[in-house]
């Protein structure tokens, strides 16, 4: 029988309830151990380790950005249904700012003028050394301190891809992401105490310019972090591709966090199967969106068949190992989750949703691996997944995820995991999917 629930928090435990005090040390130890193990396994090869590290870093950063997008779009659309899961997203979004610390090792390689990760940092990067003449030209361009000694293309791109402007952009991105996440979290927490409805209006008013800011930062950060690994390549579709995966994985993490909190007896009453059902629908939508964007990017390049663009896909297709990974991505990131989440019954089953969310997250990591790793040695184009190479990536991933969880616990602390006095709380508590 239908009853309207009063807009009141009824769960006995709505905070981490001291759980963070136990979790943070464990997570920090696991994080240090994982990253240390990766460093050891890679034999202190800075290139191999840093590429694995960058893959895991981009993975967690995109999750954090996906959650930031979730918070912003929910305010922008005045969503009522999502109020009880919004706080989780706010905490994860806030993690994006301290993630800057985790980016420092990568940034350091750029600042010392090394091309370990970003090849554009050293002159002659656009020359492929296939014979004595080109090898000499590359060495000459690398040795020269004058920019005018570089090939014309490199001189043009130098205006954007140089270490100081790159560093400035990276700092700006993290400041803007941190500022937006902090604004939403601060006002949301303030409302927990005062119940002031004007705070909701204030967050909604700011969500529109923030959305534009988010779009600009995610476009250029995806250019800088991932696309500039292959600085000759260009695809204006790439930021959309990055964003599609980011929001999708953000939804998965919000859902998994909710399941974990409820399994451990927290916020048991506020998040219902209706919320998970809607998250599942969004997930399926963004699986299709990801596939749509990934395919559009591929098909336009495939059809035009211009060497300046096709070489990027060539790296990922003409080597049996990378080709297998490309197919795994197609089937695992698109077809399998598409059918896993199809149908009301499947989207209202907690076990299946957990399975789908974990599976999508794994595939999302494979997605970043597929984008980043082939750029490690594009000349030899060697496939590195499997064997000890896989252990490096896995250890690094575990370590970075543990640090990410530690950040979440640090930010959430003893704060409430649901908004307590949001004016739309009643709507969210009575949310029902038809």
């Amino acid at each position, binding site marked *: 029988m*239908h009853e309207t629930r009063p807009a009141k928090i009824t769960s006995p435990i709505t905070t981490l309830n001291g759980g963070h005090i136990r979790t943070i040390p464990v997570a920090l130890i696991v994080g240090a151990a994982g990253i240390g193990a990766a460093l050891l396994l890679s034999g202190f090869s800075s290139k191999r380790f840093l590429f694995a590290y960058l893959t895991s870093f981009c993975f967690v950063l995109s999750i954090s950005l996906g959650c930031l997008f979730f918070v912003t779009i929910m305010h922008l659309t005045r969503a009522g249904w999502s109020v009880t899961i919004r706080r989780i997203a706010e905490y994860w979004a806030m993690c994006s700012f301290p993630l800057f610390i985790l980016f420092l090792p990568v940034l350091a390689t750029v600042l010392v003028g090394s091309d370990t990760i970003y090849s554009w940092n050293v002159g002659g990067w656009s020359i492929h050394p296939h014979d004595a003449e080109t090898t000499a030209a590359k060495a000459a361009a690398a040795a020269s301190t004058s920019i005018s000694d570089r090939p014309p293309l490199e001189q043009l791109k130098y205006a954007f891809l140089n270490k100081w402007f790159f560093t400035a952009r990276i700092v700006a991105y993290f400041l803007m992401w941190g500022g937006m996440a902090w604004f939403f979290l601060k006002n949301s927490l303030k409302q927990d105490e005062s119940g002031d409805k004007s705070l909701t209006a204030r967050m909604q008013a700011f969500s529109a310019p923030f959305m534009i800011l988010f779009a600009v930062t995610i476009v250029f950060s995806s250019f800088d972090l991932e696309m500039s690994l292959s600085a000759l390549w260009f695809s204006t579709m790439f930021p959309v591709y990055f964003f599609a995966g980011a929001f999708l994985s953000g939804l998965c993490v919000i859902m998994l966090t909710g399941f974990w909190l409820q399994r451990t007896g927290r916020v048991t009453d506020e998040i219902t199967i209706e919320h998970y059902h809607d998250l599942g629908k969004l997930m399926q939508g963004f699986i299709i969106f990801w596939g749509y964007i990934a395919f559009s990017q591929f098909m336009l390049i495939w059809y*035009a068949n211009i060497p300046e663009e096709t070489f990027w896909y060539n790296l990922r297709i003409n080597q049996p190992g990378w080709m297998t990974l490309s197919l795994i991505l197609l089937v695992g990131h698109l077809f399998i989750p598409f059918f896993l989440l199809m149908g009301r019954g499947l989207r209202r089953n907690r076990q299946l949703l957990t399975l789908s969310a974990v599976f999508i997250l794994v595939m999302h990591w494979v997605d970043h691996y597929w984008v980043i790793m082939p750029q490690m040695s594009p000349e030899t184009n060697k496939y590195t997944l499997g064997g000890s190479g896989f252990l490096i990536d896995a250890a690094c991933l575990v370590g970075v995820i543990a640090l990410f969880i530690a950040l979440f616990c640090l930010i959430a602390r003893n704060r409430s995991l649901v908004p307590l006095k949001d004016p739309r709380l009643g709507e969210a508590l009575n949310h*029902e999917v038809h």
Partner: protein
Amino acid sequence: MAEENTTDPTQGNSKLVGLLAQFDDPDSLVHACDQARQAGYTKTDAYSPFPVHGIDPALGIKRTVLPFIVLGIALGAVFIGLGMQWYTNGGSIGGVSTDESPLFPGYRFKISGKPYFSLPANIPVTFEVIVLSSAFASFFGMWFLNKLPMLANPLHRISRFKRATNDKFFLMIKNADAKFDRGSTEAQLNEWGAVAVEECRQDLTDIRLPGWLRLVALIGAILLMLPPVAIFRAMGMTNRAPRLHFMPDMDWQDKSKTQTVSPRLVNDEFLFADERAMRAPVDGSVARGQLDADPEMYRGIKRDYTPAVSVTTATGSVRTSLGPNQNQQDVPAAAPPAEDVSMFITTFPDEIEVTEELLARGQQRFNIYCTACHGFSGNGNGLVNQRALALAATGKATWTTAKSLHDPMVKDPEKNPIGRIFDTITNGRATMGPYGDQIPTADRWAIVAYVKALQETGIEPPVVVAEEGGAVAEGTTTEPSKTGDGTKPRP
């Protein structure tokens, strides 16, 4: 039923459809629905101004099967979308292509050098077909499941029902329900909190169209036939009026066609100084796949051959030597001056594998291109040769006899290696013209293979004859000597 139809004389000729109960708030409606379900009613329906939470389970309504209909049709659309493109693009199975179909053939368009059927190019269209058919399936599937369109609904004859879109809530229990009973059902509805219970009756008055309307419909239908008839009539007639141009910029495009004069500028000068519309390729450009870099495959010359200085011109002009040499009819074919025979390859190039198919192909090409002069057996006595000799005998023409391929000089692998035979076909030799532009490279090698095979058969040329211009019939029936100009074959 009959009794119910006549209970109330004011209702006229009508049939009871069911009982409509009115409620004032959604909670009592849901409560009543719940009671009705528990009382065993199944043919029920509820009406409310807005979606009421929990009314579906209260009424015992099962979830719709529509998603499965849509899924089935969407999966079917995958095959329809792909199949349609496969067919129209001239796809093939086991060598049989739809572009050879006598009825509704497909079209083989080469686009961007992609295969005729290539999956990435077909996915957008397939995707659109899936989206379109899913939309239709959900829209018309909903119609079908709800038995729409319903042109008249007896509920709309009840004045209080109009507030179902405004502020009142209704529950209908239908007459068709097994448990329905006019009296007891009404009592139950009142018991469950109905504010008012009313009969819903279907008017059974004759609903056939009036006769005059049929006549109007018939005339209207005939009038509607007129435009298509007029169009068909116009299609079968000639007309002096100029045709309509709906898209003039497509009919008269701002472009130059091949082999035309250069477009002119405003001041009447030619846009291109050489007055041609077509542009020559950039010097040194080579069309894709036309580089022909391998000298063995494309010229029959050894890769490691470096010409001595004295014969540079002879070798350097392998492709073009036919120009000056073409008319030097008296030069012996097998021995052009300053020719270095050692430059030619003596075996077939790596790309050519001599197989039965190659020989069959060579025979076919030989019969098309070579037999006119050299004859089917290669003895140099083809029809052209016979006719030319006949004319030469009368003094009307000069002619040098076509070579017999069985001539010891021609057969000698030292003096006439395989590469040189290829070169002869490609560039011609003595009076023989070049065939390089007409016969593709692989076919020329096939002919070389066939010529070698022909020579190996050791068919001795019949007694040579041609001095006086007569023609000799060979033993082969394929080459009858039909010479209508009076020359007769010799006995």
